[in-house]
């Protein structure tokens, strides 16, 4: 092979490569698409796909490990002069040992991809009746303002059974809003609005943490999501809106 000229061609074609990362910017993040809520709680769906994937890779790993262990035990060196007896592969066998495994791997990849695709669509299509909450991250605080103008720090109170979508932006550096129970993470940044939605299906509190490194107190940037019954929620709204002057709340909710 004439390596030099081949190499020169390959390297010449590098000139096109910088185009690739710039593609990422041709489009900004798509706005949330709305869809009817299909009744399946997204974090349960997540758990399902997670277990499926873990099972899959466990089987693959165990098979690989068992075969390797078997070889390790079966083929120990017996005598000093002994050599390996790798059979010579025929041309077909050589190709076969590439194509068949690749097909199997690809099959499994596609299987997992479809599962993930489904879940992705579930997580990225906001139900039409989702309640809007504006979330602003700052070092090191989560600020929630809901549709009623209730403005809270590090605690979000929502009624059970109604989907919620968070519209998020950061005022300083990157943060990442992770809701432990709902298995969802999305970054917040200055200059763009990002979003995530979840389904509060069970009463009680769950932890929220920051998952993008944001300085000294990154690990102190946590809060909670409190899910209450509709009655409790109505009472909460009444109490909060009474104590907050209407003007300021609307103003801060308007920020986006």
């Amino acid at each position: 092979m004439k390596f030099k000229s081949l190499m020169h061609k390959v390297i010449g074609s590098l000139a096109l490569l910088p185009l690739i990362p710039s593609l990422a910017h041709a489009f900004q993040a798509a706005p949330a698409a709305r869809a009817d809520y299909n009744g399946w709680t997204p974090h349960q769906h997540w758990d399902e796909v997670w277990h499926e994937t873990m099972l899959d890779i466990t089987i693959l790993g165990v098979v690989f490990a068992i075969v390797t262990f078997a070889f390790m035990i079966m083929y120990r060196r017996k005598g000093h002069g002994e050599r390996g007896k790798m059979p010579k592969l025929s041309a077909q066998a050589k190709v076969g040992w590439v194509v068949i495994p690749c097909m199997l791997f690809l099959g499994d990849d596609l299987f997992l991809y479809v599962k993930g695709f489904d879940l992705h669509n579930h997580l990225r299509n906001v139900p039409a009746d989702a309640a809007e909450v504006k979330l602003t991250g700052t070092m090191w605080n989560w600020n929630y303002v809901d549709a009623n103008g209730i403005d809270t720090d590090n605690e979000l109170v929502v009624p059970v059974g109604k989907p919620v979508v968070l519209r998020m932006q950061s005022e300083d550096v990157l943060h990442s809003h992770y809701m432990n129970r709902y298995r969802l993470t999305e970054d917040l940044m200055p200059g763009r609005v990002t979003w995530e939605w979840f389904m509060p299906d069970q009463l009680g509190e769950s932890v929220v943490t920051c998952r993008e490194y944001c300085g000294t107190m990154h690990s102190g940037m946590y809060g909670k999501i409190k899910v209450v019954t509709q009655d409790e929620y109505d009472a909460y709204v009444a109490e909060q809106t009474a104590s907050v002057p209407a003007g300021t709340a609307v103003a801060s909710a308007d920020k986006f």
Partner: protein
Amino acid sequence: MSGFMGHEPDGRPGQPKTVKEWVFTLDHKVIGVWYLIGAIASFVVAGLAASAMRIELGSVGPDITDNGDIYNLWLTMHGAVMVLGFQIPALLGFVANWAVPIMVGGKDMAFPRVNAMSVWLLWSGILLALANLVIPDSWNGMWTGYPPYSLTDGAGNTALYSFIVVVLGMSSVFGAVNLACTVAFMRCKGMGWFQMPLTVWCVFTANVIQLIFVPVLAASVILLSLDKYLGFGFYNPEVGGDVLLYQNLFWFYSHPAVYVILLPFMGIMFEIFAVSARNDVFNYKATVWSVIAFIPVSSDVWVHHAYVAGLPDWLRLLQTFTTLLISLPFGLLMLSLTGTLFRGSIRYTGPMWWAMAAFMMLIIGALTGIPNALSAVDYGISDSYVIMSHFHYVMAVSGSMSIFAGVFFWFPKLSGRMCNEFLTKATAAGFFVGMNIVMGPLYLAGIEGMPRRYMDYQMFADNATIVDAQHWSTIGLYITFVSALLTIVTWLHGAIAGEKATSANPWGSESLEFTATAIIPGQGNFPTPVICPEGWHPYNFIDNPKPQFEPHPGTSGHH
């Protein structure tokens, strides 16, 4: 008999004798040793930082520091120095410089002076990084250095970060050009492309990846300093810049970078597996092509590090697919490794213990990449200990164990002496067990929601899984610490007082660095140029023709 650096005729070891010969050296073997020293020193420093972190994380609440900045400094040093100061120099410095030219039968690297400059650039980078521990305003923005945080005062000395990356990047690029020319043009007579040891193929391919992608990383961090200190606005949305640009540029390099680390360390595994089993590498040519396939496939998957960063959905879905595709070449490599043992004749030498353990960890680490690769699953585990555990298994543990396997493997050539066999095996076992105890529980903690880069986790104080996992992980660290310390002791002991190597080829390799040994010290690797006879192959253990030497010019005309 003799170390690679050879012995003087009177039996003294053939290392350079004077300080000048060491420091101003132009010889690739000596330069390789400098790389190795730098890499091991980095491992020690970064490992001590890891130990401090683990002790801090052992229980809820402050243990040895209550200052977030100090913890963040440790973590930054740990990540950056392990990757940039330890693994890349060990693989693309030590293995590439010390082993590859000899393995291809060349007399040196293509450009010895450029080679020397590269190693001193590396040392500059290491010294810059170490300075971070003592300067005021130290950099604490992690090895990823994301803006806007890195543009704030809180992040400390961003210029230092940029320079560390750029200086090491220059070192890598010059090194990569050099190595590519060495492999392309300096192979000995008779050695075709498909007669190169897989270590050479892997290092070569890794260097091509470096050539393509390092510059993008350099660009991304240079822009950081331009923004912060000279008032540019590439990442500043207020003047029309874009914060996400950095993540795209950074991972456009840093994802391929994981294969820059992976390929050479798998190359070492191939070498040791084949030699220990005295067996041909399974489906050698397909293996080579799988290695090459990493170049294109790795170039379009960087978004999997930014699934949750607010990039468009179509891009996440697209790169979920391309990321999954890596399992094809990767799977073939694993198949070849296991296949190499098939009907082999395995001898469990010290290096083989390390390599086998590394392979086991690779299975775990690589497969745990798959859940992360599914964008929708990643929403639940991104930046958690699940990710942390994934990359420690594949990169930190499998990678380090392979590198150490390589050091033990080539040790007789480096020093002319053998390491204590019992200690070699005991430390392998200790490191393996220790790191499993460190990283196994942390995977479970990650599933429970434990985020990365947290100095404390009081919000999870009532989660028994997380608290116990952190506790056990720290116990595992103590085992690892002792094993790592003993490993270094084993090397030092071996180099100073080890048994003299009685054979030039203690493991029975067929590769040139063992079979065509120079017995003369000094510049140049072989007394006269090597020739690979027809039918020679590095993994032919049955009837391989012996490498030959050109007749000495002194006996046949002039030079």
